């Protein structure tokens, strides 16, 4: 059965996805509440996999709660914590529970998390995980053994237009597409100039027509939060955006406005097929952003 995200993208509609961060505890109420909030205004909902290497409720378990609220969960799966045996096992498990989408990632290094002494597994990298998951969809395990009931997941990955070497990013995305990625959710985009150059490369190299690119959007919470992000490796935040936030009377409101403007702007960039709104700890803002960006109501399917 095809999931909602795949239907939207394959129908040529501009997709909207959002992120839900599972809690550091066993109570699913927050996930359920956010899923109920996001299901009507987004096409799919990502469940992060122990994001920044901090232990949280598992992305797969969280996805089941999202299914229960009528959402179309995207299970994020990193290669940081599991070897190829556990990864393949969880892929089968996800499909058996009704999950339709899988986002393949390498994951943040354990040193950034709350268990810095843990061993990073990294048996596979994100490209190898895509390749393995694609093979599983086609009916074989990584070792070549046959799978009688293939998982049939819609495969995605991430790409960071701001990481280095810049000249390699579009090429690396092409590798991810060759490995089986059907959709891509990018790192948060604030620096539109660099992002335009990245998109031009993906269009030139023919990658953009072979994969659905969804642009990462995060409403900045405050000028301070933006400044903090500007110093994290792999982020690019224009100084003028920080100044604009500093000058705003209501920074939270201004953040929503910025996110909306970015969405309207990236919609005009060739090759962009949707947006992925990452408003962790601020999920309540998402319906408003979707509406203000002119993306509500979402397309309906029979």
């Amino acid at each position, binding site marked *: 059965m095809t999931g909602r995200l795949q239907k939207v993208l394959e129908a040529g509609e501009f997709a909207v996805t959002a992120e839900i961060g599972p809690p550091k505890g066993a109570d699913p109420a927050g996930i359920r509440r956010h899923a109920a909030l996001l299901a009507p205004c987004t096409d799919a909902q990502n469940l992060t996999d122990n994001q920044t290497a901090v232990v949280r409720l598992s992305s797969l378990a969280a996805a089941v709660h999202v299914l229960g609220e009528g959402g179309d969960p995207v299970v994020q799966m990193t290669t*940081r914590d599991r070897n*190829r045996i556990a990864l393949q096992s969880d892929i089968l498990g996800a499909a058996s529970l009704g999950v339709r989408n899988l986002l393949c990632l*390498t994951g*943040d*290094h354990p*040193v*950034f998390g709350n268990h810095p002494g843990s061993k*990073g597994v*990294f*048996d*596979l*990298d*994100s*490209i*190898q995980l895509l*390749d*393995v998951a694609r093979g599983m969809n086609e009916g074989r395990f*990584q070792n070549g053994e046959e799978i009688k009931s293939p998982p049939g997941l819609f495969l995605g990955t*991430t*790409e*960071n237009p701001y*990481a*280095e*070497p810049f*000249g*390699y990013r579009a*090429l*690396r995305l*092409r*590798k991810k597409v*060759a*490995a089986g990625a059907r959709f891509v959710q990018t*790192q948060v985009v604030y620096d539109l100039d660099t992002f335009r150059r990245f998109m031009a490369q993906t269009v030139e190299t023919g990658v953009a027509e072979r994969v659905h690119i969804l642009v990462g959007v995060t409403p900045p919470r405050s000028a301070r939060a933006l400044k903090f992000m500007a110093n994290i*490796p*792999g982020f690019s935040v224009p100084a003028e955006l920080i100044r604009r936030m500093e000058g705003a009377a209501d920074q939270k409101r201004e953040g929503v406005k910025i996110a909306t403007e970015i969405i309207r702007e990236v919609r005009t960039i060739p090759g962009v097929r949707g947006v992925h709104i990452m408003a962790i700890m601020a999920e309540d803002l998402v319906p408003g952003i979707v509406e203000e960006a002119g993306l509500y109501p979402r397309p309906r399917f029979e």
Partner: protein
Amino acid sequence: MIVAKGKPLSQVVDMVSDRERILVAACAECVTVCQAGGEKEAVSLAQALRLWWKKAGVPWTVETATIQRQCEPEWVEEAAAMVEAKGYDAIISMACGVGVQFLARRCPKLRVVPALDTMFGGGTVAPAVWQEFCGFCGDCVLDKTAGVCPVVRCAKSLSNGPCGGSSGGHCEVSPDIPCAWVEIYERLLLQGHGEDLEGIVPPKDWSKASLGPRKVTKQGGGGR
């Protein structure tokens, strides 16, 4: 070479606190080069131990000797005879983990303890600075990566290019670590082999690295 570094003195003291005749055994190979377990370091560790025990008011004996190569049975045999003759009841080995185990295997009744933490296969990159270059994975890929090992020089051992945390030529883990994949990328372009970056490198065969203790036997090896 094998690169190692000294453990804190208090930790070494605790390992042998119930022994009375102690040999501090230096190794003249790798650990001498990386200034962790050579004769000089053995002498200064022995001095520190004598001082420690003098303050504690105990009359333990601490002597030093240098074994040419603690990972070689002939040299270990020679050392074992000396240990027996002198009646030591503990050996603090200043070799890498291989040397400690060779001594412990040859002297099973004695307590043989490590004075060093064995770190990695590496080399000198600046005066008194050693860096890891090889992880002994048993499945060398340096021909495909322009002579830069992504298995140990990338914090995530990535096979297919840099992660999203590569920034300013550095690894996301620390600005002191150059991104191995930036080096690979630049060197392959310099060599005119950018196309080497395009293929998908399949998952690594870790069975060559993790099937318990590995063995290499040359034809005719193994003896009688």
